[in-house]
């Protein structure tokens, strides 16, 4: 599974431009699913199983897209001005290396900020692709890029850019691989444009019209020096979301997840995230409303080029998901 994770995090896929990562994921799911489709916005949808009398139509969502950058101007000296795609933080940018989808690589530089007391702004930064003048620059306005940082295996802990949410993608695929004899018709959705406002899951959920929805995404942790006040920590199990800024999880779904974890003795933690949201919000608000929840992988340094997860949490997330989907769902 680690090699799968490495392959996913090393593939670029900024929001709106998921075709490359989709091909990589598609190659993995094609042999495992009954049917694989791509919708108008680019969501990859893999269906497995047909509903039996005690089964449901269930949508699982992990987003393929990652935060990135987009060129806004090439100046006369060949420097690329840019803006962000999704929640890129300005303080994570200077010195960072980026790769445009056309293959061009570059490093993020910053204007002289002597005497400026406020934090640097994206507007004060530029990407240096090694061009000496505008005409030598291989980047055009509108070209998109992702951060570049080698994948790091620290044993138990894995570090990379775009763990958010390629780790969810890997969990979904591993679940699809292990699931056998489920009573449900399950739609594994590898969604697009989550980082810019859960747009892909919005249309995918409308198209699928599920009876139950679960997102699999990363969540923050409170276990680092002077970190945010948060109960979740790395290595304590996957997190069952109760609430975030975008959704109040269906309490019946939360109870079902907790019961299943307890019964199978899978470690878990309860998650309350003050900021952020997931595809589960989009699923929940689809059509007439859908019971929805989210299984989260605890992740440090979310939206930095070095996002860290715990491999035990990842494996336990797969175990819990397989457990949840192998039995009829009892929402009470």
């Amino acid at each position: 599974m680690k090699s799968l994770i490495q392959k996913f995090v090393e593939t670029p896929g900024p929001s709106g431009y998921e075709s490359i990562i989709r091909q990589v994921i598609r190659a993995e799911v094609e042999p495992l699913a009954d049917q694989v489709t791509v919708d108008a916005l680019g969501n990859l949808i893999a269906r497995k199983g047909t509903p039996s009398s005690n089964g449901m139509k269930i949508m699982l969502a992990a987003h393929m897209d990652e935060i990135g950058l987009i060129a806004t101007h090439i100046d006369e000296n060949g420097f690329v001005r840019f803006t962000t795609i999704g929640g890129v933080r300005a303080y994570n940018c200077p010195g960072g290396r980026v790769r445009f989808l056309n293959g061009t690589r570059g490093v993020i530089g910053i204007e002289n900020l002597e005497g400026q007391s406020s934090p640097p702004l994206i507007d004060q930064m530029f990407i240096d692709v090694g061009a000496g003048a505008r005409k030598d620059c291989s980047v055009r306005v509108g070209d998109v890029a992702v951060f570049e940082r080698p994948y790091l295996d620290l044993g138990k802990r894995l570090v990379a850019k775009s763990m958010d949410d390629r780790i969810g993608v890997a969990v979904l695929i591993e679940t699809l691989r292990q699931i056998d004899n489920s009573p449900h018709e399950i739609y594994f959705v590898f969604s697009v444009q989550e980082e810019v406002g859960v747009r892909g899951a919005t249309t995918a959920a409308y198209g699928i019209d599920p009876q139950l929805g679960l997102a699999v995404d990363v969540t923050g942790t409170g276990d680092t020096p002077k970190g945010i006040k948060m109960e979740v920590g790395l290595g304590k199990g996957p997190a069952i979301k109760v609430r975030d800024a975008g959704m109040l999880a269906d309490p019946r779904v939360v109870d079902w997840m907790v019961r299943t974890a307890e019964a199978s003795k899978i470690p878990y933690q309860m998650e309350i995230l003050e900021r952020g949201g997931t595809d589960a919000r989009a699923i929940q608000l689809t059509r007439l409303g859908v019971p929805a929840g989210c299984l989260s992988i605890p992740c440090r340094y979310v939206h930095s080029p070095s996002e860290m997860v715990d491999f035990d949490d990842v494996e336990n997330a797969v175990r819990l998901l397989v457990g949840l989907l192998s039995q009829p769902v009892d929402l009470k």
Partner: protein
Amino acid sequence: MSSQTSPQEKQAPRVGAAQLKLLERLTNACAVSGDEGEVRQIVLDEIRPHVDEVKVDHLGNVLASKAGSTQDRLRVMLAAHMDEIGFMLTQNEDKEGGIFRFGVVGGVSPSHLAGQPVLIGKGHVPGVIGAKPVHLTTNDELRTPLSVDSLRIDVGPGNSSKVKVGDRATFATRFSRTGASLRAKALDDRLGVATLIELVKNAPANIDLLAAFTVQEEVGLRGAKVAAYALEPDVAIALDSTPANDLPTWDGSENTRYNTRLGEGPAIYVADAATLSDPRLIRFLVETALAAGIPYQIRQPGGGGTDAGAMHKQRAGIPTVSISVPGRYLHTPLSITRLSDWKNTVALVYTALSQLTSDLFKVDR
């Protein structure tokens, strides 16, 4: 679709005296978000003889369709918003004298308001946004930007009975043409409305054209949301107007934040705050422009939004892109556009539509 049967390609609709006259009527009409009736009437009168079907939906959108005649046609939704930014009277402070408090509707900067003449309500009752004269202004006040709360609309004693709280008001600017430039209020988005009217009148035969003249774009893309849900198109294109902030910088350094530039052709969107345009449509528009020798520009990725933001997320998703006519000083009393940019926008959209087939979507986004 087999290209053998494609009919003789028609010329793009011309932008001449009649079209300019229509744009003049459209920009002089008042249609602040939520009260689009005056522009809607012009639209209905113009398009009715040219469409198969037209209706006004519950929010006030005009939805019209014109079927093509060839095989295997795409259903293409084109959206242009009828509404404009403006004001709403909120309180009559001096019943005799006709002094009203007001609020803004849509994105309006308070710094553009003081001293501006306005037209209020369906009767276009004249008023003025008053401000304290400089003689009486303290140094501190000069340094502080005026807030909307500190401004009033003054209609005068005679007219105060002709307007009421809840009435909307617009800038009183009248349309004019000076050489290569067109000057008016509400070019955002009467340029799009005028463009769409021309396309309806000259609809290409290879598509089913679904025209949506939308409401309430300036307050959050509200009309386009229900319009796209109702029309259920295969493709959607927003026709709008976007700022050209292309003046020289104060210190002579390179202007890196121009958004678009006047005179460089229609602006194709890649990314704004509401939409990441479908890359297949961006590529198609660029290739069409290059092949036809029509100038175009890529709008700088950044903030803002068009009806595309609402359309692309409807139902199971709709491939969507936006094309705008650049305009300086949008959302102020007077905006300026270049006639050539409007002409080239009409030409690009028409040419693209007349070459659009389902082949474009055979490759996944």
